[in-house]
């Protein structure tokens, strides 16, 4: 079986991360922002797995598991907050919550 070059795996991770970042900065809908965060988390987990595959150690996958656990906790709390904000501001516009201005 031909090996997957390390470089290409990391490039894929980097590109996905950058796309997630762009999505975070562009979209104003809070749900989309959370989705972009998920994309970024996923991309960083991919980087770990690639690294773990390079050393043939399970450590990369273990870290990915932790990332997964963290993402789950974060999403649940985050979505609860989104619901709270939606009830407060009656819209999902993240720019509406800008009382810290100035």
């Amino acid at each position, binding site marked *: 079986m031909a090996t997957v070059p390390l470089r290409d795996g990391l490039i894929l991770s980097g590109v996905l991360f950058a796309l997630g970042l762009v999505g*975070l*900065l*562009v979209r104003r809908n809070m749900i989309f*922002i959370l989705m972009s965060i998920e994309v970024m988390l996923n991309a960083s987990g991919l980087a770990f797995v690639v690294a773990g595959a390079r050393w043939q150690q399970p450590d990369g996958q273990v870290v990915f598991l932790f990332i997964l656990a963290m993402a789950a906790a974060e999403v649940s709390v985050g979505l609860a907050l989104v619901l709270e904000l939606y009830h407060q501001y009656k819209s999902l516009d*993240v*720019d509406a*919550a*800008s009382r810290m*201005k100035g």
Partner: protein
Amino acid sequence: MLRLLWLIPAIPFLSALLLAVFGSRFSRMTVAGLGVGSIAGSAVISILTAVAFNGSYTQSLWVWIHVGGFRPEIAFRLDALSLVMTLVVTFVGFLIHLYSAEFMLGDEGYSRFFAYMNLFVACMVTLLLADNLLLLYLGWEGVGLCSYLLIGFWYQDPANGRAGQKAFVVTRVGDTAMAIGLYLIFHSLGTLRIEDVLREAAARWPAGSSYAIAASALLLGGAVGKSAQLPLQTWLPDAMAGPTPTSALIHAATMVTAGVYLIARTHVLFQLAPPVMLAVAIIGAATLLMAGFSALTQDDIKRVLAYSTISQIGYMFLALGVGAWGAAIFHFMTHAFFKALLFLAAGIVIEALHHEHNIFRMGGLRRELPIAFWTFLIGGCALAGLPLVTAGFYSKDLILWSARTSAAGGVELWVAGLAGVVLTSLYTFRLIFLVFFGELRTPVSKRPGWAMRIPVSVLAILAIIGGFIGGSFTRFLATSLPAFPEPAAPGITEAAAGSIAAIAFFLGLAAAWLLYLKHPELSAAMAANATGRALHRFWFADWGMDWLYDRVFVRPLTAITFINRRDAIDSLYNGLARLATLGYRALSWTETGKLRWYAAGIAGGTALFIAIALFL
């Protein structure tokens, strides 16, 4: 006994401090007791040290500054000159303090007054007893401060504050010149201790060297400012805004003679610079004439006496300029007696007429206030120089004789002095005739108590007998000041010169009697015609010097400050503050409160740092 020397300034300092801090809590009696008692203590100690005096004595208290080779001490030096002047200052000061215990009784700033007066005496004595020029300068500045405080004593009236300010600023010009002179002396001679300065200057500076001329000219600048001589005499007439005891003490007997003391003290420097000595004599002669003319036209009793003071100090400067050091100090002593007497008697008159100052509204007080009349008459005669009886005659005569016979002097200075005698006699008797003779214009409301009568009586006695010690006085002073050289071949004898001076006195007396007593309509007519009016206005305004200074100095400065009213330097600092505010506003503009903006900031920063790590 000589070891008590330091108490002479210390007791008044302490008293001033106590009165300043606790004065408002003391009763009038306590304040007066403390204020007068401290000066009495100083006077007693100076008399004791005089008795124990045995040649020059220096008492060093501690080292004030010690930086490199600069080591001035707090040290007091007692020699014939400082002893004489300290005795006069403390004794006359005591009498004036006693007088003001009653004079200022109705004033609510009683303790403040005594605190200032005590501080003044302390600073004056420090000045006189100082062993080095720096300590002298300390006393110099101290008396200037007290003068300012006391002129503006009744600060509720802004005119008094302005008068005090004027005095301070004008003397400051002189003080600055003096400070530069001190720097020059230190730079060239390496010391400020007076004995050492005089010794080193005599050794190192050739006669007529530019150092000597510069140093003595600068010191002369300081003396001119403090002693109200030409061109810095404009402050003294306005200083009469202060209480009468202040005018008596500061602006007649003591502070204004500090310049005379300075020149006498540093006489070696002046002797090394003949052009400057000539300048001193010319300044003295010019001032005595100018002030005499101005005194002739004044209508405020205190202003007449102020111009008279300026004129008499002109005599002292004249004496110093021709090298008659002893004569100058002799005249200082007699002047202290009769000028203080005149001011105190004038104070009695002013108080009695309920603060009336205009002599044309006084009159006929001869019978109403006999003590004021007789003491004022004695003082006036001493001032004008009534022959043989009064002290003023002897001292002024000595000066005139020295001017006539000195190598540097000559006939011109003598004639100027004689003209001064005529003027002095004229304005003095004008004053006496207008105030005490004629009909009563303002009724008398208050008569003086014993605290005011005793000082004027004592001073009157001194004004008479003070002149008899003339010969031994100058001999005593010759132990510390150079004696005036006996003239080789004088043109006229001393007796003849004295008679001519006496004739001048009677000339003035007769003119005053004629114009103001016998035929007052003559003086009124002289004042009414065109030239008379113009001259009157000119001399009344002090030969237009106030107007001149206003145009030359005050207005351009005010114009410049008006142009700079936004203050360029302040704008710099304000600009810095505004810059900070701008920075704050700029940075707070970046806090939009929007989540995506902050995320973009983080991302941008990360990209930047990675780029720096990669490429730099």
